[in-house]
């Protein structure tokens, strides 16, 4: 950000990169909406888009730390498959015998095992990378093959289904949402938290006598943030539950089934998970020592080491975190599909890396934001869903996504050179 010649957006404290990504997203959405004759920007499609983005976006937040420290993780797609398969087998073949079929503890145990498994596998990879100094590219390429193979072993290639009903709520769908009332509650809560945080930051700055944004700029930002949150909830609350599912959902929500009853989806649970992950990861990256060390190590590994940072242990933690997030994504992805086959997670590593990179994470290390990666994932998913709904066939979809990826990174490089960041 330039201090001398502050633009309107500069005063708002929005950087050009964020604006660029939002601009790209808006252009994509409007374009697809025009081509499909208004079928893209519908509550239904936006709901699906939000659910489809969740799994990749959750992992992309972790990939930011990995790439910022000049590493890469090629194993997340296979790891997701392996964890998804293991946890599926666990809840279908093992846990019902322990707790009884349909017991409420099953989904909790399954989800915890997924996260724990990811953290352990990730930590092990991180240990090889940090302490044995084998390059991350090689270690995770090895992992890519190992986990895909291990996944097959869990059930000898058999598809596992059906998953526990409660577990499946974590994947979204008509049942897996907050419902209307809770969604509104969530929207109000999130808005209040955001506004309070902005006010607190302002007060801290004032206390130290630092330069602050003008009051009008702060006001506009608050209106934007609150508008975005409430607008999102409103759209999700406008997506009607289909007739066929109505009796079931009505029963689940404790609503009396009467003629002419209309129910709406609300915010999907995986999207709530994604938002929580985004908030937590943003706090980690900007407000904790660990996050600070991640960026310092990415900027200058030697300087980090000389400042007393244990960069080896840091590597273990980063990959453990990446693994834990992959565990969360494994839960979302398998729950969404309701069944796990050996293809689960295929090519996800590339989607995740692409999302992080499109979101402004530099492969040369040191730069990258969590919100950028999430928006990057949303851009990728919008592109893919949009092309599918326009009727672009699969091979051409790949070609377009590939070209867009390279183009986006080139733009980013030009932008960096211009701003000298």
């Amino acid at each position: 950000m330039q201090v001398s010649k502050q633009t309107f957006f500069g005063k708002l404290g929005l950087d050009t990169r964020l604006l660029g990504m939002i601009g790209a997203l808006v252009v994509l959405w409007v374009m697809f909406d025009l081509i499909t004759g208004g079928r893209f920007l519908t509550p239904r499609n936006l709901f699906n888009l939000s659910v489809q983005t969740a799994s990749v976006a959750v992992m992309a937040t972790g990939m930011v730390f990995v790439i910022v420290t000049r590493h890469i993780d090629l194993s997340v797609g296979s790891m997701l498959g392996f964890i998804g398969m293991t946890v599926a087998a666990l809840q279908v073949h093992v846990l019902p015998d322990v707790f009884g079929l349909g017991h409420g503890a099953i989904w909790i145990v399954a989800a915890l095992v997924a996260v724990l498994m990811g953290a352990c596998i990730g930590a092990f990879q991180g240990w090889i990378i940090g302490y044995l100094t084998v390059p991350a590219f090689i270690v995770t390429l090895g992992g890519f093959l190992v986990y895909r193979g291990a996944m097959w072993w869990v059930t000898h290639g058999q598809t596992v289904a059906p998953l526990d009903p409660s577990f499946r709520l974590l994947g979204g769908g008509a049942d897996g949402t907050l419902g209307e009332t809770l969604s509104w509650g969530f929207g109000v809560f999130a808005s209040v938290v955001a506004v309070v945080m902005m006010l607190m930051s302002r007060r801290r700055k004032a206390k130290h006598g630092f330069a602050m944004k003008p009051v009008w700029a702060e006001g506009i930002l608050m209106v934007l943030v609150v508008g975005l949150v409430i607008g999102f909830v409103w759209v999700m609350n406008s997506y009607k539950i289909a007739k066929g599912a109505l009796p079931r959902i009505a029963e689940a929500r404790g609503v009396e089934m009467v003629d002419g009853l209309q129910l709406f989806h609300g915010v999907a649970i995986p999207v709530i998970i994604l938002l929580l992950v985004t908030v937590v990861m943003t706090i980690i990256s900007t407000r904790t020592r660990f996050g600070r060390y991640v960026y310092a190590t990415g900027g200058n590994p030697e300087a980090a080491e000389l400042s007393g940072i244990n960069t080896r242990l840091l590597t273990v933690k980063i990959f453990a975190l990446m693994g834990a997030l992959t565990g969360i994504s494994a839960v979302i992805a398998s729950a969404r599909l309701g069944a796990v086959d050996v293809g689960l997670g295929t090519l996800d590593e590339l989607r995740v890396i692409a999302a992080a990179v499109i979101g402004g994470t530099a492969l040369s290390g040191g730069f990258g934001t969590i919100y950028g990666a999430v928006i990057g994932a949303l851009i990728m998913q919008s592109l893919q869903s949009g092309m599918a709904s326009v009727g672009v066939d699969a091979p051409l979809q790949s070609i377009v996504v590939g070209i867009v990826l390279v183009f986006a990174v080139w733009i980013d490089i030009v932008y960096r050179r211009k701003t000298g960041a």
Partner: protein
Amino acid sequence: MNAQTPLVELKNMSIAFGGVHAVDDVSVDLYPGEVVGLLGHNGAGKSTLIKMLSGAYVGDGGEIRVNGERAEIKNPRDARSYNIETIYQTLALADNLDAASNLFLGRELLTAFGTVDDDAMEAETRKIMARLNPNFRKFAEPVSALSGGQRQSVAIARAVYFNARILIMDEPTAALGPQETQMVSELIKQLKAEGIGIFLISHDVHDVMDLCDRASVMKNGKLVDTVNIADVTDDELLSMIILGKRPGETRVEA
């Protein structure tokens, strides 16, 4: 110089990289309130010697004593625990972070919630920079956007801020303008008066004559000699550096 126990003793330090004996059996020491210059041609081994004290390298042989007691310095954290602070020749800054983040790297100020307190760190950074380099304004930018001298100021501020007892300065004024260099000279005198021991690596013989109490000269990884500044002339010091001869071993040629 005096009868106290030395603040630091480096005894028979050696380290080799591959076949190169970068530092070969070098012993130097440092007393409280003393400035010891380390001199020598490029590649003499000065930086490597002090990096063994700052924990960046672990020597192949030798012994480090702090306050007369054997010190195990295996990494930079150990060195910091002995209150040894270092301004590296390469500055060792994370280019993507701002001045405050660099200054407090590894020792962040925290809020009551355990999160990093960027505002408090910036406030402290402003205070110390006002002392070291009053013209410094770029607190919000990453240090990659700073000039060489400004970067050096940040590195100096980092070493000075944390109440070092032993300060290592590896060519601290190499990139500084005359006014800033003058301020660093003043700073060195002030720290010396506070009883801090300073190793000053410099190529500027005048600076060394002006600021140091003693000077140790190295050549090709070996110690030529350590002399009292009061007992030598500029020319004698120069000839030690260039010819590797002790004063008295040979007359200074024009």
